[in-house]
């Protein structure tokens, strides 16, 4: 259910990033509300990953701003936050799911510790409770709980990705960034993972920004969509509307390029 009150959770204003003379992305603006899932689609080089990194404060914009509504209701410019505050936000209020799960996990540390780390980082000091919370999340992301003491180095790709999701959601973030969350996984594994993500996002009322080159993923997971090409937002709006009734030439090209099932 989307919170249709008029309080955006994240606001991008004219976001622009230049890498020297190379354009990352240009003039991107939108509002994201709690519980809303937005897909950013485009081909390689479209600027979608740059946009995701700008929105998650991992890159500083060349121009424009990103505003985030903190839990106390105040809209803050991410650029005005100190590093400590940004990192804290990253560990508690936000999640970031990498395409390659190993980037978002401690690969040699047990699965349970991977999930528990954020809890320990915010001051949980009871082993039993930390382990209990980790077990809970293993159930929710459907990893067998007898794997809780195994390191993700021993997990399959799909399991690692599910662990990464659990690790990000354990502190009840309000906003999750996902970079090609099913990229690189077997097709059968993708389907299950997508459904898991859909379920969790709905159940936890998460807002999410999902970068993907796969329109089917966008259709399945998102309410809204931005289509990017060469650093610019070519078309944006309701996902099913943009994908069923594409207006821009590039969007029409993208949609018509999907091989039918």
């Amino acid at each position, binding site marked *: 259910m989307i919170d249709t009150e008029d309080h955006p959770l994240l606001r991008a204003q004219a976001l622009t990033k230049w890498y020297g003379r190379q354009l990352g992305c240009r003039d991107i603006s939108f509002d994201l509300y709690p519980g809303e899932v937005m897909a950013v689609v485009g081909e390689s080089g479209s600027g979608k990953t740059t946009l995701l990194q700008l929105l998650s404060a991992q890159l500083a914009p060349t121009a424009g701003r990103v505003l985030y509504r903190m839990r106390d209701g105040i809209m803050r410019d991410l650029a005005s936050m100190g590093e400590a505050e940004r990192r804290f936000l990253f560990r508690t209020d936000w999640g970031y799911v990498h395409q390659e799960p190993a980037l978002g996990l401690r690969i040699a540390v047990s699965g349970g510790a991977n999930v528990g780390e954020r809890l*320990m980082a915010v001051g949980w000091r009871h082993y039993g409770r930390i382990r209990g919370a980790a077990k809970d999340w293993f159930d929710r992301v459907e990893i067998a709980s007898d794997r809780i003491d195994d390191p993700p180095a021993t997990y399959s790709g799909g399991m690692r990705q599910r662990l990464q999701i659990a690790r990000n959601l354990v502190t009840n973030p309000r906003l999750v960034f996902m970079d090609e969350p099913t990229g690189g996984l077997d097709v059968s594994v993708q389907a299950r993972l997508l459904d898991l993500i859909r379920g969790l996002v709905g159940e936890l009322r998460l807002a999410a920004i999902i970068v993907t080159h796969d329109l089917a993923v966008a259709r399945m997971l998102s309410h809204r969509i931005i289509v990017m090409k060469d650093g610019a937002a070519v078309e944006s709006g309701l996902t099913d509307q943009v994908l069923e009734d594409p207006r821009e030439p590039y969007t029409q090209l993208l949609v018509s390029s999907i091989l039918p099932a």
Partner: protein
Amino acid sequence: MNEAAYNFAYLDEQTKRMIRRAILKAIAVPGYQVPFASREMPMPYGWGTGGVQVTASILGPDDILKVIDQGSDDTTNAVSIRKFFVKTAGVRTTTTTADATVIQTRHRIPETALHEGQILVFQVPIPEPLRFLEPRETETRRMHALQEYGLMHVKLYEDISRHGEIATSYAYPVKVDGRYVMDPSPTPKFDNPKMNDCPALQLFGAGREKRIYAIPPYTQVVSLDFEDHPFVPYRFNGTCALCGATDSYLDEVITDDRGSRMFVCSDTDHCAMRRARGHGLDPEPAR
């Protein structure tokens, strides 16, 4: 080369100044690892160069030096380092803990309680407690700066999940003055409580890693743990075969090639003191 070619305690005065500045900084920020320009010493890395540089910087002609290695005054390293300072500084030396003004140690804290005015210098191999979990120096520096110590508890969590208890038995991480998490050097966790509220100044030197840190006297030092797995200072449940002590840290000594062994105090001075006072009259090693 004759002795007159060495400056007092080997290091030149400017180097000693630089190290003392680092030491002052370390004392001002308890538990914080201060980088310093570690010098080439006449012993290889891994043999106590950090501790030796700290000691060399603080020694004065009136100091009385004690050097121990794993609690003992008479192992090779302890003897070598003591001789080094006799040669280059001409200071008096002792094996009696209570009489020393500067004690350099590798991997143990003396059993005898320290008093005000004493300085304990620790030899440290890897100063960064988070190193094994986070190999990036950039990242660990940030973690200390931002007080992000969740990862430290991850290590302890892993111990409990693997062994049922916190199995870390030495180099057990501590929180100093409620702020920095520190590696106390590879001393047994049995020694951790001695660091807390200690009347002596504790200095830590890592030569290869080029870091100095410190615990000023009477500083709070707390071993990390979980509420439901509290810190326990572990000690082998036995008696010293020489002096009969039941509360000192014990070394296991193999006495022959048939598997015979005995347990004796690791702190040789402490053991000798107890025997001098009449403890442990039985001269035969226990089987």
